[in-house]
């Protein structure tokens, strides 16, 4: 008999989305000076969720001035243990409002509610808890005596994990004594604006966190602002390079967390059932909108057929559809633009002769979607093996020996993450020490923890987020 799961939608009643949102500057919501605005859309329904302020030059000036003044008058003078109290309070408020934040995230981003509820929001709270603990212990972080904050941090975050990326940026910045001007992604501003409300609720001193919404122009204003001391960016390699050029020679601190084309390497002695789950989680988690996604599967030839058969069978069980349904595995693509980008790269895969297979799932009529797709017969020379697709598209390559796996894995301009699947411990260590990737997972993939530093090699960027190493991104070592 067939067992159809009845719809199990999460309730929208827990959120109250305003028709219009201002900018969050100096502890208050304020309208932009030139009154620009844009709309944020639910990518699963194409419904307009709210009108969002487009911050212009004068608004970014106000935000940076507010952050500067808060830094000078309060935040830099406050002992670490007092800053910690605010961070703990923010962490607890995120937990208390977790249902609301998860629903907002899913509506604005299109990701399944299961993921925003079980991954994004709990991890965001965990980042605040973790960094709260560091705030009064920075002397012991191994960064020299009396490490000092930069001052004002300008932070620009992407749309794939809106609240979580905010937490990755804001928590360490505040813990280390910096104040913040944050620009959320144009298509996913709602949870950042809810976080602004949480800052008010936590009585965070005005100006410590400022949130300016807008598009790429606003981002540029933040990263190029002369009174910003430190720039932290997560997003595409292309934009990262522009920022690095702009920041060069200014003396500003810079960390970049950019694209990736991670190899997920499956050896013939891997735990195969769990490896298949790891492949699915590696590339189809969050519709593949993950910079560290395992988008290149390197599988040993001797088990390639077996693994691919099992993978395709597994993919047919993935449930694509309404992101608000608690049983949905694959949600909506975040924007029309992103869907077109995925489609363009997939067509290049077809044109270059790779074999495409897509899960035979029904695609909803409205919104932007992409079925889980696997390319086999891919070689290193194909664009789909080189370029970041940032969608639910897996490129499968094979290898014969560990050296070949290593060589192919490292043969990429990127180096953000990698996965190794084998039951042989010595092989894990041998591979991990030779893979040029910032994060190497063994017998798992896409696992995150605030205590574990995250960041890239090569064109995947520099600087680390999370862990003791992540603090260094927001501190100048003492003694000079």
């Amino acid at each position, binding site marked *: 008999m067939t067992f159809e799961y009845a719809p199990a939608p999460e309730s929208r009643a827990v959120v109250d989305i305003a028709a219009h949102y201002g900018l969050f500057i100096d502890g208050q919501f304020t309208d932009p000076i030139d009154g620009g605005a844009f709309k944020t859309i639910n990518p699963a329904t194409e419904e307009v969720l709210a009108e969002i302020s487009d911050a212009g030059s004068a608004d970014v000036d106000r935000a940076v001035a507010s952050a500067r003044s808060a830094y000078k008058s309060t935040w830099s003078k406050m002992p670490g243990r007092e800053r910690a109290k605010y961070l703990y309070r923010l962490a607890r408020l995120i937990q208390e409002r977790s249902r609301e934040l998860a629903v907002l995230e899913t509506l604005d981003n299109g990701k399944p509610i299961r993921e925003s509820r079980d991954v994004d929001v709990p991890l965001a709270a965990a980042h605040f808890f973790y960094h709260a603990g560091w705030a009064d212990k920075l002397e012991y972080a191994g960064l020299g005596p009396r490490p000092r904050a930069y001052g004002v941090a300008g932070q620009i975050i992407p749309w794939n994990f809106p609240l979580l990326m905010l937490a990755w940026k804001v928590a360490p910045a505040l813990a280390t004594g910096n104040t913040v001007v944050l620009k959320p992604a144009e298509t996913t501003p709602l949870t950042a604006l809810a976080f602004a409300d949480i800052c008010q609720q936590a009585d965070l001193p005005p100006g410590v966190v400022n949130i300016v919404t807008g598009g790429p122009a606003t981002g540029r204003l933040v990263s190029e602002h002369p009174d910003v001391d430190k720039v932290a960016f997560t997003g595409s390699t292309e934009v990262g390079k522009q920022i690095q050029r702009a920041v060069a020679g200014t003396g500003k601190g810079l960390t970049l967390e950019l694209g990736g084309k991670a190899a997920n390497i499956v050896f013939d002695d*891997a735990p195969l*059932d769990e490896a298949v789950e790891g492949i699915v989680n590696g590339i189809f988690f969050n519709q593949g909108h993950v910079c560290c996604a395992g988008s290149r599967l390197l599988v040993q030839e001797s088990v390639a057929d077996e693994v691919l058969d099992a993978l395709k069978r597994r993919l047919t069980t993935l449930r694509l559809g309404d992101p608000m349904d608690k049983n949905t595995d694959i949600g909506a693509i975040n924007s029309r633009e992103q869907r077109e980008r995925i489609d363009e790269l997939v067509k290049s895969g077809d044109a270059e002769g790779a074999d495409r297979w897509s899960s035979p799932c029904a695609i909803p009529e409205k919104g932007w979607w992409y079925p889980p797709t696997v390319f086999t017969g891919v070689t290193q020379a194909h664009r789909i093996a080189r370029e970041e697709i940032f969608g639910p598209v897996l490129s499968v390559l094979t290898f014969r020996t560990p050296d070949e796996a290593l060589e192919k894995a490292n043969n990429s301009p990127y180096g953000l993450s990698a996965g190794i699947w084998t039951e042989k411990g010595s092989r894990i260590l041998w591979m991990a020490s030779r893979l040029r990737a910032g994060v190497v997972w063994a017998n798992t993939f896409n696992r995150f923890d605030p205590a574990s530093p995250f960041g890239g090699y090569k064109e995947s960027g520099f600087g680390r987020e999370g862990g003791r190493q992540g603090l260094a991104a927001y501190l100048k070592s003492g003694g000079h």
Partner: protein
Amino acid sequence: MNVALVDGVTASNSALRRFLHGLPGVDQVGADSRAAMLSTRSIKASAKEQAIDLAISMVDLTTLEGMDTPGKVRAMCAKALRPDPSSAGVPHVAAVCVYGDMAGIAREAVGDVLHVAAVATAFPSGRASLNVKLQDTRDAVLAGADEIDMVIDRGAFLAGRYLEVFEEIVAVKEACGSAHLKVIFETGELRTYDNVRRASWLAMLAGADFIKTSTGKVSPAATLPVTLILLEAVRDWHRQTGSLVGVKPAGGIRTAKDAIRYLVLVNETCGPTWLTPDLFRFGASTLLNDLLLQRQRMATGHYSGPDYVTID
């Protein structure tokens, strides 16, 4: 896997060991997290109604106590035939499960409407001579059991004497005649998921009709990840041999919510083919009443209470 291949891998203890240890390993963290993810599935409304009735029809209603009496067994059989006297539409359970000496009483009570499963082979420890185990099996079948739940010799398994375990299952299967054989691993004693996978293949090679997690006498009994590994084994066995082997988690499954999680696990691991009492059973005693309470709640819109289901 054809007969020649089965003969090949069971030609000697070392051949069998090579085969079982050549199966892909199970990563514990990964298996646990897969089971945990599937248990977040939200089964509501019509899907829940369907799942509750399916779960009721899959119950092996069990009493395995030293204090069992004919009266107790007859009362349980009455409940198994008609779980909820207040509602005509409730399906009967799949089987009653009793000790061998109660098989005759049970058969008399359920006629040919339900299966009668008898635990045999010196259940639950399995510590007896092969002759005793075989006689135990024959007695139960003779008394009317058409399903035998045997336990494997965990001592021999953990000592690496796989062929001994294999031959014992083959012998019990033969003693079963036409009765179906369920092979209990007592996964709480095998401990590792690798062992659970090996035991599954060992039992299927030996001709098991069902593979079963636990006796219910050892903790932990059935868990979602262990059942996941059994399900993966029968799925892969079917792919290789074309034959269908059933799975029975037993022990510790007490609530309708638990039962539904198991059904989701079956659905998303093996697919709908296994969603039948012929291929999936719950070994349970108290589960049935919670299923009935939930069923009443779905039908009436409110919770009744423990006095609105029967205690037998």
